[in-house]
């Protein structure tokens, strides 16, 4: 049995925990693995495919077998390595991938069927009958597969992010890392040292020798102000230009973490220099049934003894092909265990009192839930010996993962007996210590596969055996990449740390090709699996993206407005009044108020860009498809902006406030892209123009004041003569309100009514909204939202986002004549391409007494509903309270010929097919008289 024989290096503070419902006791400083081992709990999990019983085989984050689920509900964490989970009071863990219980798992029948379930078997069957894949085979396979379970409950923890800068990042806190950190610190560099373990010291901690030197180094580093030591912090990726990602575990080791404490912190570390001191991990040898609980790596057997004081068995065998085996033998022997030493080599320094077989190998094992014995082959003879623990020293794999993250290829080193980093390291990175093969160049005899039947596990978690590798090769999957994909070798949660090198070794042994010619092993980020929550950081729920509030948001909230998300903005969609039960009632009322009296709408979200400088007009003349040189001061002009490819980009207005000063407005959606585009045109295409751009979207609260009585209302607000004569259609002015508030007034209309847009500094926006409604109460002043805004602009036939879908041209919109052919402007040339210039697709209007659905397609009566019969689509639709019918605008080809015709607006999705008449898109006041009164 396995038991605690000493306090090791962790002391004796008792800690209670449970596994699969049973209560146990361990010590503070234990990992879940060491504590279970101390309690003789060797069986920890089931394998992925054959559901074979498994115990732990490693000491650390490369553990492939001992995966458990920690906690439950909103904090249920599946696939947690028992070997890295620190013990805390009350920890509750359970085993995975077994039913009904860990000891008795129904699906272990797969093990009996293993001969049928070889690599790739599913590619060769389950093809008949066709319909059975989704309905029968796949559901069965999916249920059998997978490891742990998510609770499907929202993660209760918060996550955290940060950015760190240093001159030298040291990865790994073993002796080599500590020394490298100290050296850099003494050169005056700002140093960050990260280590994935709770305690610095690395492998030294797991040996029996004293660790004074390590502790001395740590003390000195702690005393230095330019050194930041970060334990429980794993460097996960090495990205371009010295950017590293690192994950700090803040709370997973605590019984009662602080409520607000983020579970993990994801750091982005900027460092021009990095020292990789990540050490190495040991490797298994392929012998039959090398996966039984009780078979582990020699270093693990030793580490559990020296650090945790846990002796894994009464009779411990050590099977090695490497000097390292001896250290384990010595320590086990000293701890009073009966030790059997099997070594593939013929000569090595013996250990007194230890039975030793040289030129020998372990070829098989027995024991279902716990190792009972091993079969040894020596000098052509085979014999069984009883033992309840086996440590395997198959050689070492330097942890070169991070050297691969920018395409580096590790190379095989015979004297190390493992893959070490190639020459193509990430810029600024160097490798030291065991990660570079130091200390590993011991006496090693290459041994990979010593199995009799090939039922030796190369990738234990994915149940990839020597047999599978041979079969894949036999079927022509020769390249390592093919092998990996066909057998899933190295695709387990240890990311091939255990399997890759052994797999390549086995392949090389059986093909007779040298390892370097078989292939190498590559790694991609992350170094160990990272919680998705940590990568998302603080971006959760409402904080997923920033929220932008309009100046009158507080007013709208008080009015009980219903809000809609437009980009990152929250806008009032409509303002329901007492008695209104359906949103349409509110919207109709608001739209009618604008046509018959006056309405007020917060249009601050429209982009605003200040364009100033001696060449401002010339600049706009290049940016807009229509002309701007002759726009007089005090006037506003509608502007059509094209992309260079001639497609409509955006539309808006430009008001000339003074000779060298324009204010440009954009659509809400394009505020940022248009600003970017204008800076591009200025800096990249016309750098010599005297133009200075600045966004003022945020600075000004802007309100549409629209309706026949808008002038009457505004005359009570602004300190400016605004009669039709004094302030005609498209006029603009910088002025003041009667109370002295600075303001800008534009006589522009989106609704088609007599209308203005009034802007004041944002801080006054909320107050202005209320004032307009109070002062205009007797005129019927009504707040309206985006819904009514939409109705009004559809009634007027104004194109908006739905029409400007990035494919429509000025011609399509009926604005072809706006593209000036007499000057250069962005998009002007490519807008003249055949199929664009000669397109017959036009914006038209539709009327019906039935509801027209946006996104319907238009088909002539009597034609079947298929694409070839469609003439176009409905881009925007609504009910028009002013016309008392349903209306829409959209695009159809050969529009002129269909004007006045009857068509069907068909939405197969909704099984809706309504008759519509094709009309001009300008439903209201086509001559535009209302604008000019």
């Amino acid at each position: 049995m396995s038991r605690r024989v000493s306090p090791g290096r962790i002391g004796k503070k008792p800690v209670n925990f449970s596994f699969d419902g049973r209560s146990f006791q361990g010590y503070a400083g234990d990992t879940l693995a060491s504590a279970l081992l101390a309690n003789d709990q060797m069986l920890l999990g089931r394998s992925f495919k054959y559901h074979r019983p498994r115990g732990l085989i490693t000491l650390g984050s490369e553990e492939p077998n001992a995966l458990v689920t920690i906690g439950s509900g909103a904090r249920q964490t599946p696939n947690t390595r028992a070997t890295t989970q620190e013990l805390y009071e009350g920890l509750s863990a359970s085993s995975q991938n077994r039913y009904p219980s860990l000891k008795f798992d129904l699906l272990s029948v797969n093990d009996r069927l293993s001969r049928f379930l070889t690599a790739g078997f599913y590619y060769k069957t389950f093809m008949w009958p066709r319909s059975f894949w989704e309905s029968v085979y796949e559901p069965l396979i999916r249920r059998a597969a997978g490891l742990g379970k998510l609770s499907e409950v929202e993660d209760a923890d918060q996550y955290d992010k940060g950015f760190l800068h240093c001159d030298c990042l040291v990865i790994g806190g073993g002796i080599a890392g500590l020394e490298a950190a100290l050296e850099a610190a003494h050169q005056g560099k700002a140093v960050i040292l990260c280590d994935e373990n709770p305690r610095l010291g690395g492998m030294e901690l797991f040996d029996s020798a004293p660790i004074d030197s390590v502790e001395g180094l740590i003390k000195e580093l702690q005393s230095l102000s330019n050194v930041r030591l970060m334990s429980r912090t794993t460097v996960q990726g090495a990205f371009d230009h010295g950017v590293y990602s690192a994950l700090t575990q803040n709370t997973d080791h605590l019984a009662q973490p602080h409520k607000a404490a983020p579970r993990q912190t994801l750091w982005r570390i900027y460092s021009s220099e990095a020292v990789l001191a990540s050490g190495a991990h040991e490797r298994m040898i392929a012998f039959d049934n090398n996966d039984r609980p009780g078979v582990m790596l020699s270093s693990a057997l030793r580490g559990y003894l020296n650090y945790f004081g846990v002796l894994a068995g009464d009779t411990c065998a050590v099977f090695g092909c490497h000097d390292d085996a001896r250290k384990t033998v010595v320590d086990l022997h000293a701890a009073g265990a009966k030790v059997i030493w099997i070594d593939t080599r013929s000569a090595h320094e013996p250990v007194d009192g230890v039975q030793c077989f040289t030129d020998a190998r372990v070829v098989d094992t027995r024991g279902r839930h716990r190792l009972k014995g091993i079969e040894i082959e020596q000098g052509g003879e085979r014999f069984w010996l009883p033992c309840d623990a086996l440590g395997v020293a198959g050689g070492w794999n330097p942890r070169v993962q991070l050297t691969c993250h920018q395409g580096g290829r590790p190379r095989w080193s015979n004297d190390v007996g493992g893959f070490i980093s190639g020459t193509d390291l990430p810029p600024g990175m160097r490798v030291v210590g065991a990660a570079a093969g130091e200390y590993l160049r011991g006496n090693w005899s290459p041994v990979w596969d010593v199995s009799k039947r090939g039922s030796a596990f190369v990738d234990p978690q994915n149940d990839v055996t020597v047999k599978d590798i041979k079969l894949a090769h036999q079927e022509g999957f020769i390249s390592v990449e093919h092998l990996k994909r066909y057998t899933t070798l190295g695709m387990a949660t240890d990311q091939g740390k255990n399997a890759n090198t052994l797999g390549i070794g086995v392949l090389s042994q059986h093909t007779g090709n040298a390892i370097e010619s078989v292939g190498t092993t590559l790694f991609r980020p992350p170094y160990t699996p990272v919680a998705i929550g940590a990568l998302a950081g603080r971006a959760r729920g409402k904080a997923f993206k920033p929220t932008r509030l309009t100046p009158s948001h507080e007013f709208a909230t008080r009015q009980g407005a219903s809000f809609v998300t437009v980009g990152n903005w929250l806008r009032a969609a409509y303002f329901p009044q007492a008695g209104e039960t359906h949103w349409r009632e509110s919207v109709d009322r608001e739209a009618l108020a604008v046509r018959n009296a006056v309405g007020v709408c917060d249009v601050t979200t429209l982009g605003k860009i200040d364009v100033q400088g001696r060449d401002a007009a010339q600049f706009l003349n290049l940016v807009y498809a229509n002309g701007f040189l002759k726009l007089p001061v005090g006037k506003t002009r509608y502007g059509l902006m094209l992309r260079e490819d001639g497609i409509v980009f955006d539309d808006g207005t430009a008001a000339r406030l003074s000779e060298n000063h324009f204010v440009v407005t954009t659509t809400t959606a394009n505020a940022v892209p248009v600003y970017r585009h204008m800076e591009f045109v200025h800096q990249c295409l016309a750098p010599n123009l005297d133009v200075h751009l600045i966004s003022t979207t945020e600075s000004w609260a802007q309100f549409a004041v629209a309706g026949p009585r808008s002038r009457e209302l505004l005359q009570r607000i602004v300190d400016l003569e605004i009669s039709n004569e004094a302030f005609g259609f498209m006029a603009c002015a910088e002025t003041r309100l009667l109370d002295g508030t600075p303001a800008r007034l534009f006589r522009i209309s989106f609704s088609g009514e007599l209308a203005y847009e009034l802007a004041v500094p944002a801080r006054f926006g909320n107050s202005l909204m209320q004032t307009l409604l109070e002062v205009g109460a007797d005129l019927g002043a009504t707040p309206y939202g985006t819904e009514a805004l939409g109705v009004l602009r559809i009634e007027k036939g104004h194109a908006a986002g739905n029409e400007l879908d990035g494919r429509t041209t000025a011609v399509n919109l009926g604005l072809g004549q706006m593209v000036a052919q007499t000057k250069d402007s962005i998009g002007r040339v490519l807008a003249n391409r055949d199929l664009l210039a000669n397109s017959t697709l036009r914006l038209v209007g539709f009327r019906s007494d039935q509801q027209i659905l946006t996104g319907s397609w238009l088909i002539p009566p009597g034609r079947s509903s298929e694409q070839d019969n469609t003439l176009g689509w409905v881009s925007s639709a609504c009910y028009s309270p002013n016309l008392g019918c349903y209306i829409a605008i959209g695009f159809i080809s050969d529009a002129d010929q269909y004007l006045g015709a009857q068509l069907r607006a068909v939405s197969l999705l909704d099984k809706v097919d309504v008759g519509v008449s094709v009309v001009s898109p300008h439903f209201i006041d086509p001559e535009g008289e209302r604008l000019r009164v």
Partner: protein
Amino acid sequence: MLINHPLLGLRDAQEFVYKGDASLLQRPQYDSDNALDAFTNYAYLRSNPAGLHQELWYHEQGDRSWLVVTRNTLTHEIVNVELASEVDA
């Protein structure tokens, strides 16, 4: 990635918006005889080299400079950064 802004020094590329091939600086003459072909090539054809690539980045979350960055598309190494407005187009 990090971009060494000529005025601001090293900044995280996340602050920038990418536009692409710096050949966009050489906008053809709108009134030349072959304007249509010239603009089609200008807008659509890319040499797309595997190696050094001159490209446009916009420091949107910074000083709003358009930069011409010379970057190796095989290694992502950046060998030169200039202000677009100071590059002779």
